[in-house]
């Protein structure tokens, strides 16, 4: 059902690592360390500016993968992985897109589960990949059946 989408990418979308968004995000995960929001602390740090927490890429816009329709309910977030070349800098621009990495099905006690693997990419303006964020989404048999109807 999703296998036909493997390899498909979204269009690239320009995102900015926004100062206010980083502060709000850091507060929401209970991590109010000044490296994320205090300009003086940022300037004195080895990065000479503020950085974003490692799970921050959740907030970016990755565009739309054409034709890929996910159910709005009943998805289970099974696994999540981030890889970084360096931390994200507050204020920097990133070009973000998503790719359908894989889809497979496995039998389980809950019936046949579908595993959809989507990787989000973030590139700097020169085209260097700064981070990737890979999600494995589990789609139960019941949810897939409801989609066909």
């Amino acid at each position, binding site marked *: 059902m999703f296998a036909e989408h493997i390899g498909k990418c979204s269009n690239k979308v320009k995102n900015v690592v926004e100062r206010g*968004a980083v502060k*709000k*995000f850091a*507060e*929401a*995960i*209970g*991590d109010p*360390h000044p*490296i994320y929001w205090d300009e003086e602390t940022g300037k004195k*740090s*080895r*990065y000479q500016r503020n*950085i974003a*927490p*490692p*799970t921050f890429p*959740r*907030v970016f816009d990755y565009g739309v993968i054409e034709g890929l329709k996910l159910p709005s*309910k*009943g998805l*289970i*977030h*099974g*696994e*999540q*992985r*981030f*890889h*970084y*070349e*360096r*931390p994200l800098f507050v204020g920097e621009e990133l070009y973000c897109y998503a790719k359908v990495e894989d889809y497979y099905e496995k039998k389980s006690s809950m019936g046949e589960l579908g595993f959809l693997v989507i990787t989000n990419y973030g590139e700097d303006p020169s085209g260097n990949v700064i981070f990737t964020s890979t999600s494995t989404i589990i789609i139960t048999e019941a949810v897939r059946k409801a989609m066909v109807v």
Partner: protein
Amino acid sequence: MTKIRELKVGEWLPEVKLPPVSRLDLIKYAGASGDYNPIHTIDEEAKKAGLPGIIAHGMWTMGNLAKLFTPYYEEGFVQDYSVRFKSMVFLNDVVTLKATVKEKEDRALRFDVAAVNQDGKEVVKGEVVFSIY
């Protein structure tokens, strides 16, 4: 504070015990992350989805867990961070965050990380590679 690079295999970062999960925690995370799936904030929607009540975003717990490494950014950064969401986190659960050194390489430390609930059950389990400058 101990330098992270001086930790030995089997040693751990100071554990963090979170306050009981509140509805406001999840509303704040929904707003900050843009994940407005109502099973995290609205009781009736959680029940309709077959859950006993609202559950925390997996990414909320994953985000919290990463803060064990925040004090060490002058020494390095989180290069790889991967987790499995093993069990759900409900309102009023008390989650403890843990990180133990599993392997040491020249320029990196590999940690086992976990978020554990009040019953000792792992809700999130994974690995962090902390790269040293």
